[in-house]
């Protein structure tokens, strides 16, 4: 089992009894053949990690929900073409994380452009992310790609090589972004440990 598969199975939620313990390839094959139960098992296995990953990148719960939903919808639309020898999780996470990065970038662009007087709070997206936790606040201080790298490595358990493939960046870039991000997050984490 790959690291990605292990990671995707860390946060199972209410698996369907019929499909409990079935290998992912079998679930994908059954879903391709029309089994909604198999699809639901795939959904329950993967929703929470995908949703959490999106939230940690965009820091906006409504947007994270949309991004995770849209990623699943994209996966369903492409289900018939999916090669079931490949793990489902990385495929889904790749879509989710890249969408979350795109969303964060577009929000940053919009906030840089500025909203005309009188439209604040009306046309603008949420001006402040939801930061009830100091770790979230620290993550918010990183760029979207840095947050994505941290999430992929330390929440979803991908290797730097796998992350590089997902985000289409060299492994060295992944490592350097991880290192810089961890330098900023470490004091918080160590403080939490202490």
């Amino acid at each position, binding site marked *: 089992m790959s690291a990605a598969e292990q990671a995707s199975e*860390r*946060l199972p*939620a209410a698996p369907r009894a019929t499909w409990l313990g079935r290998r992912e390839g079998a679930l994908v094959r059954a*879903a391709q053949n*029309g089994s*909604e139960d198999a*699809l*639901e098992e795939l*959904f329950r296995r993967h*929703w*929470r990690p995908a*949703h*959490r990953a999106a*939230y*940690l990148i965009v820091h906006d*719960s*409504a947007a*994270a*929900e*949309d991004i*995770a*939903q*849209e990623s*699943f*919808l*994209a996966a*369903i*639309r492409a*289900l018939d073409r999916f090669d079931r020898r490949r793990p489902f999780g990385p495929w889904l996470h790749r879509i989710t994380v890249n969408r979350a990065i795109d*969303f964060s970038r*577009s929000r940053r*662009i*919009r906030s840089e*452009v*500025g*909203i*005309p*007087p*009188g*439209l604040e*709070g*009306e*046309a603008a*997206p949420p001006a402040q992310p*939801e930061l*009830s*936790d100091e*770790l*979230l606040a620290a993550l918010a201080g990183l760029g979207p790609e840095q947050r994505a790298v*941290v*999430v992929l490595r*330390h*929440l979803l*358990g991908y290797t730097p090589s796998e992350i590089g493939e997902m985000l289409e960046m060299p492994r060295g870039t992944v490592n350097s972004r991880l290192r810089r991000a*961890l330098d900023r*997050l470490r004091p918080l*984490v*160590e403080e*939490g*440990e202490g």
Partner: protein
Amino acid sequence: MSALEERLRDLPVPEDDAAEERAWLVISAAYADRAQAPARRPVRRLVAAAAAAVAVAVLALTPAGAEVVDVVRDVVGIEDAQTLPELGPLPAAGELLVDSEAGPWIVRDDGSKHQLGDYGQSTFSAPRGLFVAATDGRRLVALGPTGEVRWTVTAPATVSDARWAPSGFRVAYRSGDDLRVVSGDGTGDHLVAGGVAPVAPAWRPTASLKLAAAVGEPGPEQLTYVDAGGRVHLVDADTGETIRGGASPAALFNRDRYGPLRQIAWSASGERFVGSWDRALFAEVIGHGPNPSDAEYVATRGDRITETALAPRGDDVAVIERGGGTSTIRRIEFNRGHASDTTLFAGPGAVEGLKWSPDGRWLLAGWRDADQWLFIRADRPRRLVAIDEVTEQFAPEGGDAAFPRVSGWVLPQR
């Protein structure tokens, strides 16, 4: 497990459980549609384009007259703005159909106008506005250009939301919860569907239907409606047979999240279908022929979408959004599955009755709280012409009257 990993796993995600259940509703509905629907491109979020910021009209609600003009000039990216005390020559060619408390009116582009009678909602016949269909309780009445009655049908229940087919050969309307269709000469009135939602039906323009052209036949008149469950149906208006149904876009939208489906429309080409929910806009490209060739989704979330109007040419959509006491008019442009939006106007109070000019260069909206009509040039250079004190111009008896609503803008046959 590292400390960081543990913290990332344990951070609370707001509404985690509820979000999962909402998502499953959407995903399972999409999966159910999968067998029937064509391959679709991913949902895309509307991104407010940088250009939006420079094309915004932000108006304070001020007394009528020149003061409004000053506000416009001071604040906005509109290059030219003026306020007129009454209806004069319209900034674009065509005739307006206006529903007032006294009844429908025709307004010519020289500013002259005449009332058609004492009726309720009205709609122009397509494509040139030779006739008007108007509601009168349980009656649907076809009127000539001076208000003479051409024919009348009496329906089982109160008539509303009449829509003339682009061909001019059919009129669809709601009678209570029924959807009915009558021929353009007043014959052949028949039930198409029962149990429909309170959403105006939308005809699909089929003039460019390549298949029909190839065989030299006009093909069926295609009508879209929304059923009580929020599902969209495309049917043959004469037989009621489903042309496309089941794979409803409504199934992809969570009613709790986006609100009910309010409005449906087709682009002039008949290839783009648009549905608007309270807080989402959905667009789908549907190819002609028995099997849809392609489809796409565009979604946005923000203020409540109160109206949607498709441009007479191309696929642009104008919407009115309402939130926090402000109404905003946006133009949404589609380009290969991407969408960008430009804010054309924002002002306090209610804006309604959004219509494109026949040439697609102007938008007209009624700003009820300012008692003005706003003619907004949709492309560059931006211009705004406000017509003042509109209500009293359509209230021959004087007194307190409802704000008149523009229901159509056509280029008449001369």
